């Protein structure tokens, strides 16, 4: 009878775990990978030290005048002095607390969302938030000074355009997607025509249409708010893309689900609202977030119709004759802000996916 003696616990061999192992497995496994790694490191060496030197070591942070930027590096003083313009545009400085309040409400709403269980309550809350936000920012009631939309600008306008664009486009997109999947020929052809027409045109064309061509069709003297024109254009544009993404979701739902819903006698809207859409939207989440991120970046296009979003505000500030020549600092700052927002959105979508990924597959 064999005698088994207890073998002392040993560490895993050094070549199967740890940093060294990871490096060997992932970076230096083949000659090609060694070469690519070397190339990658070379590029990093080539790019990062000069950037750090420019953005940090040689940069100027303190002071408030152009003369304070003496070093050869970045002049962050420019960004610091212009930060109010970047954030709020021409919004009167005495009224900027209103925008900050709306931002604050957003975080309160997010916290409430964590604890609220009822979906309809959440939707109600979101609606209330938008209405309160609009009245707070626009003003003109309860003694709040009215701030016309031509004073809106900077990051705040970027967020307004992106948020309104997504929120307004969503219901329209759902309707268009259902229309395209419908069996009624007229509705289907209207939806298909709309979607294909809009998707065949660049956003910039629609913005030009809304800002330059449209006013010529109105009787002389009739002017519409430029921001509203742009928002309608963007929402119409986004709706077509959202519709296509939702259609993708709809097509992934097995036929049995439709038949089961019909079998228990649900009407069309009950079937869609209770059975099909909840599943279809869940599938479409990654793509919908993708569209939202793309829209957030597309908002910079409103610059060409004379609305001053964050990027346009930076360009405008760089044209201040006192601060000429500091565009680069402004653009780096904008890059960071956009990265922050887009990365947050993409993170959020991953969380959503995990949370909703309960049953499928």
């Amino acid at each position, binding site marked *: 009878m064999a005698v088994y003696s207890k073998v002392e616990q040993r560490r895993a061999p050094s070549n199967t775990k740890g940093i060294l192992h990871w490096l060997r497995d992932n970076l230096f496994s083949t000659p090609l990978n060694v070469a690519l790694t070397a190339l990658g490191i070379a590029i990093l060496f080539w790019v990062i030290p000069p950037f750090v030197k420019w953005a940090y070591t040689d940069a100027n942070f303190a002071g408030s005048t152009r003369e304070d930027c003496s070093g050869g590096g970045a002049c962050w003083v420019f960004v610091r*002095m*212009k930060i*109010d*313009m970047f954030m709020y*545009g*021409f919004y009167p*400085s005495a009224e900027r607390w209103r925008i900050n309040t709306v931002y604050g409400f957003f975080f309160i709403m997010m916290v409430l969302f964590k604890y609220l269980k009822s979906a309809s309550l959440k939707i109600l809350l979101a609606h209330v938030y938008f209405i309160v936000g609009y009245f707070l920012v626009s003003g003109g009631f309860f003694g709040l000074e009215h701030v016309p939309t*031509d004073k809106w600008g900077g990051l705040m306008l970027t967020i307004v355009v992106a948020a309104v664009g997504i929120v307004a486009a969503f219901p*329209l997109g759902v*309707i268009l997607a259902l*229309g395209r999947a*419908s069996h*009624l020929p007229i*509705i289907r052809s*209207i939806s298909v025509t709309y979607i294909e027409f809009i998707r065949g045109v660049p956003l910039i064309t629609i913005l030009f249409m809304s*800002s*330059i061509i449209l*006013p*010529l069709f*109105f*009787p*002389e*003297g*009739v*002017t*519409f*708010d430029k921001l*509203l024109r742009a928002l*309608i254009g963007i929402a119409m544009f986004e709706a077509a893309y959202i519709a296509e993404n939702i259609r993708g979701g709809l097509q992934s739902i097995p036929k049995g689900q439709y038949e089961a819903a019909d079998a228990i006698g649900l009407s069309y809207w009950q079937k869609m609202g209770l059975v099909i859409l909840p599943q279809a939207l869940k599938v479409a989440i990654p793509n919908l977030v993708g569209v939202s991120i793309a829209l957030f970046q597309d908002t910079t296009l409103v610059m*060409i*119709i*004379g609305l*001053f979003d964050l990027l346009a505000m930076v*360009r*405008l*500030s760089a*044209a*201040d*004759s*006192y*601060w*000429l*020549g500091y*565009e680069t600092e402004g653009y780096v700052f904008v890059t960071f802000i956009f990265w922050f927002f887009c990365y947050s959105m993409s993170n959020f979508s991953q969380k959503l996916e995990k949370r909703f990924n309960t049953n499928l597959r």
Partner: protein
Amino acid sequence: MMLRSTIVKMSLATVAVLSFGSTTLSADTLSDVQKNGFVKCGVDGGLPGFSEVGSDGVYKGIDVDLCRAVAAAVFGDAKKVKYVALNAKERLTALQSGEIDMLSRNTTWTFTRDASLGLNFAGVNYYDGQGFMVNKKLGVKSAKELDGASICLQTGTTTELNVADYFRSNKMKYKLVSYDTNDQVLKGYETGRCDVLTSDQSQLYGLRIKLAKPDESIVLPEVISKEPLGPVVRQGDDKWFDIVKWTLYGMLNAEEAGVTTANVDAMLKTDNPDIKRLLGVEGQLGEQLGLKKDFMVPVLKQVGNYGESFEATVGVGSPLKIARGYNALWNKGGIQYAPPFR
């Protein structure tokens, strides 16, 4: 579904009408402006010295000063302006559609614009033209010495054609180095890809500030094209046209007569009949425009005369430091000449 889309359409239309009520445009811009309580003025917003926005969000510049002057003439308050930032493409549409009352956005006065677009140019507030910037080290003092030079410029503009014309008519050779944007042009010049940078003179001074060593470059005195920039109004409203025109002429006449922001109060007591008519102490000139007879007093107090405005926005008092050149008064070697207040 049909019902839904009808509802969507109806609500869109309602929203549009409710929140942004339409204003009808009459041929009487002055009374519209007075009813609104402000002048809607189209500017660029991103053009150093002409119309730019400071860190406090306030518009300034020589084009902006004209908007402020018209507001001062109409309301006695230069702050009653609503600025509409416009790009080059939409500026004329905005004026035609009534989105703005006047356009002061370094717009070149050309035959086509004046004759066929339903617009009128109410004078010239800046005589611009294409010029050259060179490095001081070259020792060039005049554009006539540029034979054989390599020239950086922005492609696809009239700049290119003007250079070709100028060098051909002076029988000189040159080499073109073209770029897409003004910033690239500047980089090319700075890195020594070319000896000369050419653009409109007003732009050259702005570009020069962006150089690492602005003092090492000079702008040559020659101007090789005509770019008269001025305020624009809609055709068919002569009263408003006259108001804008004579506000500008008033500022020029004030400079000629030596009336400034500082001495305008003292000048009210002067014996000089020209100044008396200008300031409305004598005669009813302002009333003929539909304004107060002393409409130029708030203009001069709050904006200043043409020279003061020029020096503060683009001249020695500004970072641009543009020389008066053609924009000096006619009796000081320039071509700025205003008809008399009489």
